[in-house]
């Protein structure tokens, strides 16, 4: 497993992935590998805890767009929490926030995804 993935857990049918370090091409692919695997097994709610990710690049974030697209096919969704302000800003500029949600905390995220 890539060292970019710090931890993966499941909770109430929600997959929560915790990242660590630079979200680049490799980091994005490490996330998508997990998501695609879990989608095959019938999961379709994903949350990413990005507390450990202080810096991203647009290639890594583009891979999140691929995941969003894939999730539309299965009526799934993805969200993020614990984002550094600049990561949140980058997601905004790229428009991810039109198709997925940035939450402040894990609690907020789980609350919304459990509905």
């Amino acid at each position, binding site marked *: 497993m890539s060292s970019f993935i710090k931890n993966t857990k499941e909770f109430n049918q929600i997959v929560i992935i915790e990242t660590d370090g630079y979200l680049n091409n490799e980091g994005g692919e490490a996330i998508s590998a997990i998501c695609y695997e879990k989608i095959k097994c019938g999961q379709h709610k994903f949350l990413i805890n990005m507390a450990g990710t202080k*810096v991203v*690049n*647009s*290639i890594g974030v*583009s891979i999140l*767009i691929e995941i*969003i697209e894939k999730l539309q096919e299965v009526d799934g969704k993805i969200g993020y929490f614990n984002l*550094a302000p600049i990561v949140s800003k*980058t997601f905004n500029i*790229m428009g991810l926030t039109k198709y997925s949600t940035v939450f402040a905390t894990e609690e907020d995220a789980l609350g919304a995804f459990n509905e």
Partner: protein
Amino acid sequence: MKKPSVELKLPILPNMELIATQTSEVIARHMNLTEDQTGEISIALIEACINAFEHSQTDNNVFINFLIEEDSLIIKVIDQGIGFDKTKVEIPKIENKIGKGERKRGWGLQLIQELMDSVEFESNSDGTTVTMKKIINKKH
């Protein structure tokens, strides 16, 4: 007195753009920039470096110059790559990328322009120089 400058010469290797951002963070602290501005510069710089790396030969180098001015930070990212015509680059929209099997990438220039106060491109077949400027909001 001469204005202080920091210059980097980076090889084309994975993740070398992090040297550029780490450098900009030290400079930002020296200039007493806000955390927001520091982050904006970091991401813009990463994107400019990735472009420079991606369109260069592996034996080339990428040069990054930081010019510390009284009220701004000017950063030049210089590559010896194939060059490009900025006017031909489409502005990306996520609506056009999702559900259409389109290439998801193409955000670098857009991010640079949104995150910096001014950006200039000089490009020809010998390479590209991106000059980005951040006007300083001092902390407090």
